[in-house]
């Protein structure tokens, strides 16, 4: 890394012809464009290769399977993505989902209506998110890692305690069919994913709040100086992440017809991986909903394909890990190219 920087500096110091600088300018710009589209390109390539390797892969039934299986990761990853946009992280999403599903199942058995059961799960998720956000911001914690690690443990503990360590079978029929049945040829959960994605897209891209999220992720202290209510913005991202975990609980409880304290194991890793693989920046301020969705689907596709190809679960973990490293390195490379671009622009003038 240092060797690279040194050679870079030497290059800058040498006077070069405008033509050379210009062609490098173009090369860097093309590189940045490719990196921007990287995840989508890789996903398309992956699908092409897999459809050749396994004729079953592109069958409607298998595609439906992939969508149904990735729906939970998709929804929760969209919440995680918001938190990562602000340079944060939410480790509690899996336990949060488990607790919400248990509370939903308990309320169902206590005679609550379908709507109430859904509300219980979503509100429970939002509440855990609020605890995360409030403690992080107003408890002046150095990093959200700590508080969300704590709630990961606490929510899991409460869920296990309430459910006595076991799954609680039984969900209202409407929630069950949402998780299990197809509508117009698509799994019900796909519509939930689409709805959440549409709402998130509008919120992040078209509202003042969305702009504030990007500003806070870009440079929090500058956001304070520009009069943006940084604390409230941060808390809101954790509340939404928790809400997404609650919605994920509804989908998973419907699919399995149960609430369980064992749900959502390692979901934090899957969602963080999805956001990063999809192409959002771990350094904050860069990314959009599409990244979370593409990343989640990519993980789903890789898992599904490795299953179809009879590759063991252990190898799947390794493959996903390798993909994460590639994605993070792509992010580093992008930052490098951007500073190179800046140097070139300063040299050649605007």
């Amino acid at each position, binding site marked *: 890394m240092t060797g690279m920087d040194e050679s870079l500096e030497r290059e800058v110091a040498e006077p070069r012809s405008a033509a050379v600088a210009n062609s490098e300018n173009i090369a860097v710009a093309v590189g940045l464009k490719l990196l921007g589209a990287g995840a989508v390109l890789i996903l398309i390539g992956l699908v092409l290769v897999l459809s050749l390797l396994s004729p079953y892969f592109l069958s409607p039934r298998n595609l439906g399977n992939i969508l149904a299986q990735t729906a939970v990761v998709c929804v929760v990853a969209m919440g995680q993505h918001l938190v990562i946009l602000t340079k944060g992280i939410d480790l509690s999403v899996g336990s949060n989902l488990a607790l919400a599903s248990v509370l939903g199942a308990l309320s169902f058995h206590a005679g609550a209506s379908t709507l109430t059961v859904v509300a219980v799960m979503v509100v429970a998720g939002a509440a855990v998110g609020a605890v995360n956000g409030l403690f992080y911001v107003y408890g002046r914690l150095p990093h959200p890692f700590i508080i969300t690690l704590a709630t990961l443990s606490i929510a899991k503990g409460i869920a296990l305690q309430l459910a006595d360590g076991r799954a609680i079978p039984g969900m209202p029929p409407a929630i069950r069919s949402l998780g299990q049945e197809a509508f117009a040829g698509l799994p019900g959960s796909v519509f939930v994913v689409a709805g959440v994605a549409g709402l998130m897209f509008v919120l992040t891209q*078209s509202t*003042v709040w969305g*702009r504030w999220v990007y*500003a806070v992720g870009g440079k929090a202290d500058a956001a304070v*100086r*520009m009069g943006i209510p940084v604390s409230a913005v941060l808390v809101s991202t954790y509340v939404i992440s928790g809400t997404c975990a609650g919605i994920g609980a509804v989908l998973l409880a419907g699919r399995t017809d149960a609430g369980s304290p064992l749900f959502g194991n390692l979901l934090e890793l899957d969602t963080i991986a999805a956001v990063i693989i999809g192409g959002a920046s771990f350094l904050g301020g860069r990314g959009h909903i599409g990244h979370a969705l593409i990343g989640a689907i990519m993980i789903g596709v890789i898992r599904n394909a490795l299953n179809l190809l009879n590759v063991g679960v252990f190898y799947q973990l390794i493959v996903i890990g390798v993909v994460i490293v590639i994605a993070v390195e792509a992010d580093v490379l992008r930052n490098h190219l951007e500073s190179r671009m*800046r140097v070139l*622009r300063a040299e050649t003038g*605007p």
Partner: protein
Amino acid sequence: MTQHLPEAHPQHPVLSVSGACKRFGSVVALDNVSIDVHRGEILALLGDNGAGKSTLIKCISGVHRLDAGDVVIDGAANVLRSPADARLAGIETVYQDLALFDNLTPAQNFFAGREIAGPRWFPRAMRFLNKRKMDEQTRSLIQSLNVSLPHLDAVVALMSGGQRQAIAVARSAVFARKVVILDEPTAALGQRESRKVLDLIGALRDRGNAIILITHNMEHVTELACRAVVLRQGRRVGELVPTRDNKQELVSMIVGA
């Protein structure tokens, strides 16, 4: 360049700081400092490193609060509790670190925290951005200030040092109504880029703003400033109308020799 003298401003100063004191623990950063600025003039704030220049302007822009002293804006005493208060009062600041968002475009930077959005009866955070209007205003501002930004839709991270500085200065121009404060705006720039920023500062003054300029460059001071106030170890040690001939006097005032 016409030299405005203080007497040329019969009206009251737009910003007046009197008896400003500020301590950080045992460090006395400001000790009974007073300054006035009028509309349409550039006041240079000079002093060695650690003299208290940044502290003084941070107190005016609401980042720090004064331990003692008054800030009077347009004749009315003001308590500036936050940067948002100062901006509301018509004071814009270009900070030494620029306070730009690298991940946003110039237009998004200009309007950060002051987005044009509606409908008005929505809570502020939930209003829909009027991107077209913000882009339009950005484009016309960039044109009227004669800044060259070829890639208006690119994020600021991709821009050169001079362009970034120009964006930070131009942002203050969008909203400046009374006072613009610039903390070493040319420190990191080459000659050509400095030139552009200086022209921009002149344009801001010509629009009727009062300018407080912190710089170490005596050429820039003699070229632009109507008056120069010198701080040393937190105290105001003098004031001059800078000319080519008294540059030496100014320098010895700064270093205290």
